[in-house]
């Protein structure tokens, strides 16, 4: 169980762009949160700080209590598994199996154990039949699931998933929602970055909103997607999930998910 902590983190790129401005964030061990924000809000910059690819200009990043500054990227990669957005900038294996095995083998995991992880993950991500397939023969959805499987195979205590649902069909998105829940139940710390508000509301209980490098909202999905927060969301370049909008129009209070709408309408019907 590993906690992730950012304290007063500032980051400015070499060209002078201030990407993070006084970010304070504590992600308790074994919890999950969604990090949302418009393009350029600093989400991916923040993610890169968690495994040392970027180092803060000032402030401190701590993983499991240890200052990230004291560890190399390779060392941090043992604690924080970061899956990037674009499969074509990661996949290189000739088979699905090779690709998933890459991470664990680099960690020194034995060939048998690594293969065990490959089989288990492939099956959970719907790639069970594709172990020998060439990644180029898989469609967009399975390629994306492959990159996620490759990072999950490292079994790090913390996972950061950058836009895990872009390019996925509806079934793929479902799978990711399940996987995140399973990871949290298993005690992992999960940070999901996404611009898909529906996915965020359905999957995470806590949402952190970034706007131009600063955290402007941090709370449960009910709180953050409630109508009184919409101006702040829109100011940050975001729209609330459709379910929240529909629920508000029906006068049901804060209903960030479809299940919440159904629940609220059921209660209302029962009261009549």
């Amino acid at each position, binding site marked *: 169980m590993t906690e992730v902590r950012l304290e007063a983190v500032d980051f400015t790129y070499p060209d002078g762009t201030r990407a993070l401005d006084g970010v304070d964030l504590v992600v308790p061990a074994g919890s999950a949160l969604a990090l949302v924000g418009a393009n350029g809000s600093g989400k991916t910059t923040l993610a890169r700080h968690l495994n040392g690819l970027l180092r803060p200009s000032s402030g401190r990043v701590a993983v499991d209590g240890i200052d990230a500054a004291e560890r190399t990227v390779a060392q941090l990669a043992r604690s924080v598994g970061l899956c990037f957005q674009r499969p074509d900038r990661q996949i*290189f294996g000739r088979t699905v199996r090779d690709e998933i095995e890459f991470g664990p083998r*680099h960690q020194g995991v034995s060939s048998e154990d690594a293969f065990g992880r490959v089989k288990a993950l492939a099956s959970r991500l719907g790639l069970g039949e594709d172990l020998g397939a060439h990644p180029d023969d898989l469609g967009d959805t399975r390629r994306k699931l492959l990159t996620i499987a490759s990072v999950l195979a*490292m079994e790090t205590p913390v996972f950061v998933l950058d836009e895990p649902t872009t390019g996925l069909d509806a079934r793929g998105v479902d799978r990711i929602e399940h996987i995140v829940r399973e990871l949290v139940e298993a005690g992992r710390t999960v940070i999901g970055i996404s611009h898909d508000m529906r996915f965020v509301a359905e999957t995470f209980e806590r949402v952190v909103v970034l706007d131009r490098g600063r955290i402007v909202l941090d709370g449960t999905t009910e709180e953050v997607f409630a109508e009184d927060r919409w101006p702040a969301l829109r100011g940050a370049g975001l729209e609330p999930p459709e379910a929240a909008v529909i629920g508000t129009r029906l006068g049901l209070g804060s209903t960030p998910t479809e299940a919440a709408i159904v629940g609220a309408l059921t209660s209302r019907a029962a009261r009549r």
Partner: protein
Amino acid sequence: MSATAPLPSARAQGASPWHELDPLTRLVVALGTVAAALVLGGIVCLSLLAALTVLVPAAVARELREVLRLSLLLALPLGVSVVVVNVLFSPGTPAEGALLATGVVLRILTMAGAAVLFYRTTRPAELLASLQYHGVPSRATFVIHNGAAMIPRLAERAREVTEAQRARGLDTEGNLLRRGRGLVALAAPTVLGAMAEVETRTLALETRGFTRPGRPTLLWTPHDGPVQRLARWGVLLVLIVLVLEHLAGVLPC
């Protein structure tokens, strides 16, 4: 920059007479310098050439330091080996060898300097626009452009791939052997991805009419003029004279 109407440009215009020249003129000077450096031999002539066609324009363009620095960097590996070979293994005296070496090094430096000056003071977009202005068909410039423009894209892609693989534990800070093993993980997505991108770009350019016969509408035209035209033909003339003199063995240099 614009001779027709000001359109926004992302990079500040270099405000020097050299930058104001038609990119074609700058190209002709660069190519002419390289050709002349190959033909000329003497230290005096090479120095004059370098001064006239590289150093003076670089100074005018306020790029002297960068041109010198990058040319040296470029020429250094080859230059060092030339000097070593010629001094140590010279058939004549070491002094003669050194003299010979100096000539060769000067030639390499001049050629490098011409290339660097052109690269530093000419943007791909304006060169392309100039070539189109002068009637070079798009298909011809397409290949060169695609190649040159891909370099920064390739670098960017390589950087992203490196980050993704490092995030999976690939150690780029460790010892050389471990780094060697990771080469496929870095090279494959970079190269294959870049190739796929070239394919996509070819399709995109075709559908947007890039290979249409006839000249596209120019949004920017270079500052060309009779003086520059004369100068370009002049460069060609001088080159022809030099080559003829060289062949006839009567080259003063």
